[in-house]
């Protein structure tokens, strides 16, 4: 006797995870979209959209305010910086993966060392780097003083600048563990490649660059897609390292959209406005990733 007929059984097996997915992923997304048109402060009774509670305001006034806010554009610019410079880590990852793939016998202790930051919590990474960059007594200052590159009465002021400069310190800290992550993804990709193709290419007279460019890289494409997407997401949702190293400071110089969203929601208690930042961030992420995947698909045809 069968409990369910065959057409229903997939749904029965899927049900538990669908329920969880709906509850913890889909519902919060929809709810955030809804909150973004309200002016909820988190304490008043459940909110109706702004244009219903006060007809003279537009339902999108959170968004108009957002696009006029200096802090939004500052955070947005910083996220762009993240996309560009954090985006270097796949190159490091690829370089390391190729190195270790070739020299795999010698290099395993080194590989472990390089992989280590990946195991650390990002909070630990942030702490370590803020100590490195600590003005006055951090590692960077100490080394610069020792090498006489910086007069003893001066301090290396990277993290005290107002403007784009302190982002360098934060992004550098983030690149460290992320390169290790990219390395692991590429190593896995490399170990799946069939060896006989390399041999065939070498027999056909390809040099090492040609082998890399025309054989290995195209075959690594599935790994590259994953690596690029995790990197893009990592850059857009930059939060933990920033929060621990600078908390967005000095004076919001290193703020990112995710941190800005957190501050508006849980420091200033503007749940509606915070949700509108979340919506914009969501749109940017989805847009970027779709554009990238489309580009990939185009390349395939």
């Amino acid at each position: 006797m069968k409990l369910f007929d065959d057409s229903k059984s997939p749904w029965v097996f899927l049900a538990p995870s669908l329920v969880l997915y709906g509850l913890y992923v889909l519902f919060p997304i929809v709810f955030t979209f809804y909150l973004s048109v309200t002016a909820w402060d988190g304490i008043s009774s459940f909110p109706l959209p702004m244009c219903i509670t006060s007809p003279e305001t537009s339902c999108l006034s959170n968004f108009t305010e957002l696009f006029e806010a200096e802090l939004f554009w500052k955070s947005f610019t910083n996220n762009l910086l993240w996309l560009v410079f954090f985006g270097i880590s796949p190159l490091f990852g690829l370089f390391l993966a190729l190195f270790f793939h070739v020299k795999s016998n010698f290099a395993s202790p080194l590989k472990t060392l390089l992989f280590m930051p990946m195991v650390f919590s990002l909070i630990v990474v942030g702490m370590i780097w803020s100590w490195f960059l600590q003005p006055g007594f951090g590692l960077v200052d100490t080394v610069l003083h020792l090498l006489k590159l910086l007069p003893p009465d001066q301090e290396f002021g990277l993290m005290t600048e107002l403007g784009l400069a302190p982002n360098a310190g934060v992004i550098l800290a983030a690149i460290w563990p992320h390169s290790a992550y990219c390395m692991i993804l590429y190593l896995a990709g490399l170990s799946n490649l069939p060896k006989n193709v390399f041999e065939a290419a070498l027999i056909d007279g390809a040099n090492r660059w040609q082998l890399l460019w025309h054989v290995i890289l195209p075959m690594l494409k599935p790994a590259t897609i994953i690596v690029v997407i995790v990197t893009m997401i990592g850059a857009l949702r930059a939060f933990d390292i920033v929060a621990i190293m600078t908390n967005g400071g000095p004076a919001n110089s290193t703020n990112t959209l995710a941190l800005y969203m957190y501050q508006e929601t849980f420091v200033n208690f503007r749940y509606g406005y915070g949700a509108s930042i979340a919506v914009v961030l969501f749109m940017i992420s989805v847009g970027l990733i779709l554009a990238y995947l489309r580009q990939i698909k185009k390349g395939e045809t």
Partner: protein
Amino acid sequence: MSTFKAKTWAFILFLSSTAHAGDLIINSMHSDPDVKKAFAQLLEDFKKENADIKVVLNTTSHEAYKVQIRTWLPNKAPDVATWFAGNRARYFIDKGLVEPIDDVWTGIDKQFSDSIKDVVTFNGKKYLMPLSYYNWGFYYRKDIFEKIGVKTPPKTWAEFTTIVEKLNKASISPIAIGIKDGWPAAAWFDYLNMRIHGYKFHMALMAGTESYLDPKVKKTFEVWQTLIKSNAFNKSAAAISWQEASALLWQGKAGMYLMGNFITTQIPKNIEDQIGFFPFPTLNPEIPNAEVAPVDVYFIPAKAAHKAEAKKFLAFLAKPETQQKFNQSVKLMPTNSTSITDAGDRFLKAGIETLRNAKNVSQFFDRDADPEVAKAGMDSFVELMARPDDINTIAKKIEAVRLRVYKK
């Protein structure tokens, strides 16, 4: 961790819905081990007098509490909750979420100073019961002051700036500050603004009824700017935390530090004797001194289920013996002025004297001002300290947020 706590908390709430009369549920944000221990002792003492009341205590970490109180206060509230005095409390009081407790205050109000009563009274009614507070002021290196020929700590601004000059000449950072988090800078704004224009103007500014474009605020910024430009503060302030800045004082790299009394628990043993205290100097002799002294309070939510028991508890908190015992063990000051304070701790003694001379106490910038204005303010203060050129832009930034918040 916090979601786990939230769930535990929700579970406790669920249980509490079936609680019997005679129960007392207290929500607290004092998760610091010392304070937690002292508060547990206080509850023990309360139970001795009130054997029929069953006390349930829920302690949440400070930051999580600030977020969660907004969920439970309007819905399923405990019987007693911890909070801050001043405008942070006004926010809930104006929404009708706090029970007035004038009856608890009858007969005991003479035991509290006017400055304390002022921060628990809103629209003529008393809503809060204060337990402890602490003072702010300068902690300085006696040995360094001696070395540059300063015998007594400064009383006036002129004396103060002379010391700054002398310390600079001796190649010591005059004042330590770390503003990686903005609040230590806000203490400077609080003090300068109160010393130059008085408590009343400062509190009106905090409550949103005065403008940040007022020439008076500009004057405050100018005094501050002059001080910053005279190299009064250590380098790289924007990248170091308040703890790292205190290290500058301990190492003798800086001469003094404007901080709350909680810093005295961190003074290294070997230099303990070298650290002294003096209150923020006078800037305008016509203005009576007001001090920054954050008060920790307890209140009864309007939706509390056991108000009679809660009032008994608040009356117990107000007692001089209760306040004395609790505060002595956590090195804070009792708000009941009939409590006898052990003068064993010289910093507490100096603090009590400072507050006794104060006509009013403010609650600190980020408790007195609306949270949004406070954040914009602190960001701007950091900007001023890092780049002390453009006072007008800074004032305009805070003003823009004030206008948006208070037009609602």
